[in-house]
């Protein structure tokens, strides 16, 4: 081999990515390599080894992604170039800071999920197919934020969709609903994919390349078209109204660790896409973009939490709550866009950081919640809250982790959710004015409305998670299965505990995290967010500070006298235990007579009757002897998704009817077929002679 050939070979190897040049490249390559290895292992490993072996590899994939994301987020450069056969810009995976952050988020969830699934999967979840799909899903998801051109973005996105679809279908043999969930999921994913593809196509046509780094002033026309397409596409990925309809079907039907990964990580890809568009691809959009995003986000937040609050299926509840949280993230994003349009930079930056923090915190608490739901299903086989209860004593670790994550979801202080919502509210209430002057009429209506939406959302979220936690873990078991529940295996406990720790850590130390996150979207992050005190966060631009650790210290100080007095009192007056609660005198109260999740939400269903449109079915059976005496009353109330029943169903029915009618086009008559050709021929003849 001559020297030139060797040099050429080296060159091609570098181009082919065989020799990593930087840490980032090595990390990306390692993810791909581990992914391939995991797929091979899943295909070949013996069944009893499969969960462990592939689970460990998946964990490694996620850890690699985590580290790669960290390097990218801290400003590492470099990337992986993949050439393709088509004459386009070569695929370049090179995450920037923002991409690094999202790689970090999704792979963080990936770590939890991989650990959990090693021990939780059994039966169909542990099938070869499911374990092949898992690394594919993880790698696809982790590579989406690394993409720096539209083709590799779409490639990773579709690989992610493919992997998740297969994972979703794992339980297909045990429940008929899984198949329909699969259809909904793939159709809606494809819808989003096409929107995103069209958006990128518009952009590529306008800028002349598929790479994100060709910064060109895009004409307002194509930019607006692209924006709307992206909003629909990424809105669908992020489960925003009205493209959320797959969520309440899919997330409950998927195995819980998959739901956790989907809700905790995959929907963040939608958020990432939104940020990519608004921050990087089409910066400085007009004000109406911000308004549009805020409207969609706000509607999603309200609708999502409303549905969540009235749901008695634990996983449906969590699924709708995902819509809510993503709605809030987009609300923040839209507010940031709107505010930037008015040069309220400090508030805009704060809103953006808040949206990111919300995404991070949602990843932590929602994956923990879904894993917790999985633990409950693992222990009881039930996901209907109406049949749970009393699990707190039976599954203490799960209860604690679920509780902490619930607090996060309800945005209660010292959890991650609170910090993010606090920052969002701060940016909103300071966004209406700039240096004491009102920025615009639009903003002065939009900001209070947004605050109101967030407040109502937060209030309903509180109810939702009080219900979820209280009904499932407190009180008495409402079914025999719940009464027999036992704590889940240690590895599952570990990942639950890790998740809960994340929720607390993010809530206790928001300052450093917010500062880091701020770096990913702002050129001058220290003007937007700073870390103060012991992990506290300060927004210098708008003069707001929050130090959760101080809050903890203060609480501890005021709690000391209370606790001391309790200890003193407990010494003199030990508590007495009785078998049954007093129940206002109804001491024979059976567990079934407790309040259930359905009854818990009943007042809310009534209040929001017009929005939720519940269907009620009351059947009264009279005693044979007299119409005035009732033997039994059966009440059935169902809250279905308004968007599905009023928007999607009619359209689908129309399609079905059309599909039957249109069969006459191909009715088998050769004369008819020949006529088609004849007519086409005549038309062509007429056209060419015009």
């Amino acid at each position, binding site marked *: 081999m001559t020297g030139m050939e060797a040099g050429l070979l080296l060159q091609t190897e570098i181009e082919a990515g065989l020799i990593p040049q930087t840490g980032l490249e090595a990390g990306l390559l390692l993810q791909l390599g581990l992914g391939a290895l995991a797929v091979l292992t899943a295909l070949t490993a013996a069944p009893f080894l499969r969960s462990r072996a592939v689970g460990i590899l998946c964990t490694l994939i996620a850890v690699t992604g985590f580290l790669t994301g960290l390097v990218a987020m801290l400003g590492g450069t470099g990337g992986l170039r993949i050439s393709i056969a088509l004459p386009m810009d070569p695929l370049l995976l090179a995450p920037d800071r923002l991409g690094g952050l999202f790689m970090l988020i999704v792979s963080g969830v990936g770590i939890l999920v991989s650990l959990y699934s090693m021990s939780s999967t059994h039966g169909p979840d542990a099938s070869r197919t499911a374990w092949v799909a898992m690394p594919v899903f993880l790698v696809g998801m982790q590579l989406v934020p690394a993409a720096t051109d539209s083709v590799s973005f779409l490639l990773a996105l579709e690989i992610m969709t493919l992997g998740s679809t297969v994972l979703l279908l794992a339980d297909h043999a045990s429940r008929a609903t899984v198949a329909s969930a699969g259809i909904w999921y793939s159709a809606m994913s494809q819808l989003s994919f096409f929107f995103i593809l069209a958006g990128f196509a518009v952009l590529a046509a306008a800028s002349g390349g598929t790479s994100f780094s060709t910064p060109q002033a895009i004409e307002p026309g194509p930019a607006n078209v692209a924006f709307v397409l992206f909003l629909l596409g990424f809105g669908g990925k992020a489960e925003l109204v009205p493209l959320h309809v797959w969520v309440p079907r899919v997330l409950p039907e998927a195995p819980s660790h998959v739901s956790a990964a989907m809700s905790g990580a995959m929907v963040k890809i939608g958020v990432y896409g939104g940020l990519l568009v608004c921050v990087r691809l089409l910066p400085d959009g007009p004000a109406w973009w911000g308004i549009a995003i805020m409207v969609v986000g706000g509607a999603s937040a309200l609708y999502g939490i409303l549905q969540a609050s009235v749901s008695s299926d634990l996983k449906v509840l969590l699924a709708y709550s995902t819509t809510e949280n993503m709605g809030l993230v987009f609300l923040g994003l839209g507010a940031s866009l709107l505010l930037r349009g008015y040069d309220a930079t400090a508030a805009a930056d704060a809103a953006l950081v808040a949206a990111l923090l919300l995404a991070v915190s949602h990843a932590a608490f929602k994956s923990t919640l879904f894993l917790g739901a999985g633990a409950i299903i693992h222990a009881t086989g039930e996901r209907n809250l109406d049949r749970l209860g009393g699990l707190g004593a039976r599954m203490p670790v799960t209860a604690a982790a679920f509780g902490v994550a619930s607090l996060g979801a309800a945005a209660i202080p010292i959890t991650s959710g609170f910090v993010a919502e606090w920052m969002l509210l701060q940016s909103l209430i300071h966004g209406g004015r700039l240096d004491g002057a009102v920025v615009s009429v639009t903003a002065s209506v939009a900001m209070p409305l947004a605050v109101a939406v967030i407040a109502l959302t937060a209030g309903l979220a509180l109810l939702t998670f009080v219900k979820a936690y209280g009904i499932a873990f407190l009180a008495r078991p409402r079914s025999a299965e719940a009464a027999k529940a036992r704590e889940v295996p240690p590895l599952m406990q570990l990942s639950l505990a890790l998740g809960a720790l994340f929720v607390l850590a993010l809530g206790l130390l928001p300052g450093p995290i917010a500062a880091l996150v701020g770096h990913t979207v702002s050129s001058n992050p220290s003007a937007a967010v700073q870390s103060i005190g012991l992990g506290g966060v300060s927004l210098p631009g708008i003069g707001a500070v929050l130090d959760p650790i101080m809050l903890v210290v203060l*609480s501890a100080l005021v709690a000391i006298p209370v606790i001391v007095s309790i200890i003193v009192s407990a010494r003199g007056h030990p508590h007495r235990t009785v078998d049954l609660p007093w129940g206002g005198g109804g001491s024979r109260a059976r567990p079934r007579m407790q309040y259930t999740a359905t009854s818990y939400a009943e007042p809310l269903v009534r209040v929001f009757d017009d929005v939720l449109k519940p269907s009620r079915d009351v059947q009264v059976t009279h005693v044979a002897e007299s119409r005035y005496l009732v033997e039994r009353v059966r009440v059935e109330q169902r809250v279905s998704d308004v968007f599905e029943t009023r928007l999607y169903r009619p359209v689908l029915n129309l399609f079905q009817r059309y599909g039957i009618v249109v069969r006459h086009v191909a009715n088998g008559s050769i004369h008819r077929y020949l006529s088609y050709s004849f007519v086409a021929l005549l038309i062509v003849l007429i056209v060419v002679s015009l």
Partner: protein
Amino acid sequence: MNAVISAIIIAVVQVVLFVFLAPLLIGVIRQVRATIEGRAGAGIWQPWRDLRKLLAKDPVRAAESSWMLRAGPVALTVSSLLLCVLLPLVGTISFLTIPSDLFVVVSVMLIGVVALALVGLDGGTAFGGMGSSRHMTVAALVEPTLLLSVYALSIPAGTSTISAIVETRLLSPEIIISPVSVLALVALSIAIMAETGRLPVDNPGTHLEVTMLHEAMTLEASGRDLAWLEVGSWLKLAALLGLVSNLAVPWGVVTDFSALGLAVGVVSIAVKVLVLGVMLSIGEIFLAKVRLFQVPELLAGSFALAFLAVTASYLVA
């Protein structure tokens, strides 16, 4: 004097004062009501006696109840005590890293709300669940009003820190009687009435289970569990009344630390809270509890007021 030390002193004073004041406030409210209704009443110190009695009892707990029955009351009390620390009641000097931020205050209050609701559920009875459910529904619907009304008040001050808001109102009192401020205060008052379980949303005096909100949740608690629940709720009422009174009549609040000022502050807030309590009690005489499903209408009305206040304050100012 060092700001931190003065902040600590004021916080300690506020906590001690309100721990003393809260039962007294309840006693005054009940006594005023009894007097007006022509009953003798139990005297203004009765809440204190109740507390002493409860603390001296063995708590009775059902076998299936969890640690929530023990921890919940403490959490409620701690959250109310935190309110007393954070809110500008006696003085507006607050900690640097943890100012009396509007949203923090509301969230701290919500900790108590959640604790109470969970205690209600933990009993494992229909009544507890019912109270908890209604309580949370009201809390959820109140939150927009609560945030928006304080938001409206915060706009002239340019910050969401409540002490700063109070200081601004002290410096330029004309703000207080501006229509925006009046709207916001009315909305805030309604929100607080709902939040603390007063008429017309909840009847604190009732023991008819079906109509209860707050009382239904405490049915299963006894002994010291019940005592802390009561203390927590009373403290919350007192602190929030203190907030309203300081927003409406900010004079007397300590802004520059001094011993005399502190004494004035203590006396003025005590008087303000008690006067407000008397007014509340008198007002409640003329109110009947509305049906549960009419509560949203009430809250929607107050929300409209608050929203008007915010937009008006942007567009008018």
